[in-house]
């Protein structure tokens, strides 16, 4: 379990006027996304991913992270983006939900950005519905847009959506 960088979690700033949220930025399928740093446990290189037969196609598999079993979520599949074909190994953002660990598979990890909540804009109405479901607004950065991801909604994977 190499390549693990644990980020210190900071308490979520109250989203009052002038509040600032820190985001961990990631690239998935060429698009910049940001997740509130308060929800991110760590970032790691997923190794020895075991696929889970009969599971939802959004579940990339399970892996062992320091003795814990982590469920890896294929973010490209989850967001309705095409499969990664450049052969580069994915990275994973570790998050927790109700005592269980998940790893969100992303293409690459970026810097941590401090952004004011008031500069966040609502989802454009024509955003891809799959992405819109998990997006919690958009920040306009220099030269690109960062879609804010809602971790809870990412993990709302319905068991019925079985892989073909």
């Amino acid at each position: 379990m190499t390549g693990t960088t644990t980020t210190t979690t900071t308490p979520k700033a109250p989203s009052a006027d002038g509040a600032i949220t820190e985001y961990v930025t990631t690239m998935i399928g060429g698009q910049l996304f940001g997740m509130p740093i308060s929800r991110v446990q760590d970032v790691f290189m997923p190794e020895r991913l075991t696929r889970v037969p009969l599971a939802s196609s959004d579940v990339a598999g399970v892996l062992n992270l320091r003795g814990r079993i982590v469920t890896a979520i294929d973010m490209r599949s989850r967001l309705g983006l095409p499969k990664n074909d450049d052969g580069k190994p994915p990275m994973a953002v570790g998050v927790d939900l109700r005592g269980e660990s998940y790893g969100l598979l992303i293409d690459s990890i970026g810097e941590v950005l401090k952004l004011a909540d008031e500069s966040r804009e609502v989802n454009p109405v024509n955003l891809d519905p799959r992405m819109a479901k998990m997006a919690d607004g958009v920040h306009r950065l220099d030269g690109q847009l960062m879609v804010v991801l809602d971790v809870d909604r990412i993990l709302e994977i319905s068991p019925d959506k079985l892989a073909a």
Partner: protein
Amino acid sequence: MDDLLREFLTETNESLDTVDNQLVRFEQDPNNAKILDNIFRLVHTIKGTCGFLGLPRLEALAHAAETLMGKFRDGMPVTGEAVTLILTTIDRIKEILGQLEATEVEPEGVDDDLINELHHMVEKGMESMTESAPPIAPEAPVVADAPLVVQTLERELRPGEVSLEELERAFQETAIEVAPPVAAAAPEPAAPVAPPAPVAEKPAAPKAAAPKPAAKKTAVEADQPEADKVANQSIRVNVDTLEHLMTMVSELVLTRNQLLEISRRHEDTEFKVPLQRLSTVTAELQDGVMKTRMQPIGNAWQKLPRIVRDLAGELGKQIELEMHGADTELDRQVLDLIKDPLTHMVRNSADHGLETPGERANAGKPEQGTIRLSAYHEGGHILICIADNGRGLNTERIKAKAIQNGLATEADIEKMSEAQIHKFIFAPGFSTAAAVTSVSGRGVGMDVVRTNIDQIGGTIDIKSVAGEGSSVTIKIPLTLAIVSALIVEAGGDRFAIPQLAVVELVRARANSEHRIERIKDTPVLRLRNKLLPLMHLKKLLQIDDGSSADPENGFIVVTQVGNQTFGIVVDGVFHTEEIVVKPMSTKLRHIGMFSGNTILGDGAVIMIVDPNGIAQELGALASNAHEIADENAAMRAMNAEQLTSLLVFRAGSTQPKAVPLGLVTRLEEVGVDKVELSNGRYMVQYRDQLMPLVQMEGVTVRTSGTQPILVFADDGRSMGLVVDEIVDIVEERLHIEVASGREGILGSAVIKGLATEVIDVGHFLPMAFADWFSRKEMRVSSTAQSVLLVDDSAFFRNMLSPVLKAAGYKVRVATNAQEGLTVLRSGQEFDVILTDIEMPDMNGFEFAETIRADQRLQATPIIALSAMISPAAIERGRLAGFHDYVAKFDRPGLIAALKEQTTEVVRQAA
């Protein structure tokens, strides 16, 4: 919640369970002063603590109950009525405690009803004591007076005070070696209550207690020290703490496994020795932590004496409950899971297994029935046995029910041993029908019990001797947290299969004894003369990479779940490993094929295959060739749509042929080298018998390879019908559209979109043995029952008459209802009339009504044969006077119904 309150709740609940038990024991053995002392002490502690914590309702109840028990100590006769009253009081206390636990405040309400009754009982007891026991009489008024005086003041407090005083004295005099905790608890609550109690009463009371102390002392002294020692040497630990400890040990086991794996790869390292040491210590630690989770099984039994007592009262039976090995320990997780099944089975034994005292006396048994619970360890498992000396299982009834439910055919059942038949009570849904419960009275929800046991990887077995009793043995693993598993490979991934379910491993290879064969697409394995249904793990898990070029090879993990045995085909088998079961992520828990996942020694995560899940899948596929006939029968019974299972094959021509599967005993492929020509006929040695082969028109026996045959067997004789190819098994509505003039063919029907010839089995049977039917008739001629078969369809007449003849009946056929009536009125006698419902001119209902109206024919049972089985049709049939209603093509059902009806006739005649 307040720590003090929580402690109180835990302790009180435990104490009350003990009181329940002790009271039941006390009722049986009223002279046992030690038991009474125990009860008294427990109730007193509860009362005292309640007072201390300010819980007036509980305190009042405990007071009143204690007062009554105090009278028992004073020699008041112990009546069942009084004990019931105390038990009811305890139930009420538990109820209040439950609410207290939920809301943290004592619920509102009054318990005057119970308290008054308790007082009343005390007074009644005192009266009877005054009459029967004059020596104690002087004291009686004193005590009896007290409540009277008090009533004007504070009703529920004063009576308690008196007995509290007595109690304190009794304690001081008798329980010299009282355990410190109890001693500490007792004075405390006494303090606020005691002062107002008149000291003057002291001298009076000792006399009341006096007769007993001597005897008591010895008993108390003998037992108390030991109990104290145990109490002092144990501490309460939060379950969460233990769970956490267990998790940590699991991690340690995993890490050790990883280290061992690494050391295996590097031959000569200096780590070897310390690693070995670490390994041993870890194993010991694992054992030790495991022990902390262990609880005596007696904890699961605690409520049983009370349940049995209440049941005995309700049912008017005398029941003794024996418990052996209550201190046998097992994992608390497992304990929780078996609590309910155990209670259920004890109830069953009391309710249905044991007879009423009258019945027992008639059977020459002691009036008191016994239920015996025992538990002991056996090689990593715990065995629990629930036995009763009641009437045993009703084998006949189970047989009939099994046939009715389509679990087995009449012929199958005849071959079965009693033990095998008894196992049917565990079959799913077997007992849901009320008929079995009310008539044979056994097996309520036994399938549910088995499901629970299956879930924890246990097995269940039943033994029964009619008239002597029955016993159920449950075998369960000691723990679920760490299990031994077989690591296998399928579709390039590794999976763990729990060893508990694995019976054996078979390596299947083409051209060897064990090879995977196929019936259409269903793979099977012939193993020791049994056909084992096979499931490919990678197909089940939908990870087939299509690489399997060799369908006849593979490793087969023979697995048993309940009484279902099947083979899981895997690509490879590695080794066995102690694995730590980790629950599946909630996002993956819906996958029934896995029971959890685990981390292997090399750090990889793998899925743990759930044999129960596979067994369910197997049941759902319902296409295992071995039990196909049975299962289809069951399906037919359930399916109002009346689909018929048909075996489709090719023989002689390209046109497919079909035969109702229910008529076929087995499908076989025999090597052509085994086919011999003898006396101008083809024969094959089959199961130590010479089986004649019959060829259909245009079919030639192959000269190489294997020859598929359909085997029809009956009464020890078998014949094989040579066919070219077995095509498929289909469920179809069988409707003969074009009748055939050709011998051996009943007609043509459309099956799966193809015109298919339906063959007439009756035509081929005599070709193998000329005496196939006549032999039967000769053998049974003296007792042969005669059947009138009325059906307008030639197909059914042709199909059913051989079936009936084969079952030993004389058959007369009629082509319509009118003809049937003519035959009946001609004076010919029949034991049973079998009739179709949908017939032109006069239908089956009218036919039955006409027969019922005829005085002479009235008594003859009539069985309806119909393709449409609906509750409404059955009701209509019952009104018309049918004795039974059987689905067409339900051969076992028909034979069973016939048997039932004809034996009834014989019985009536006798």
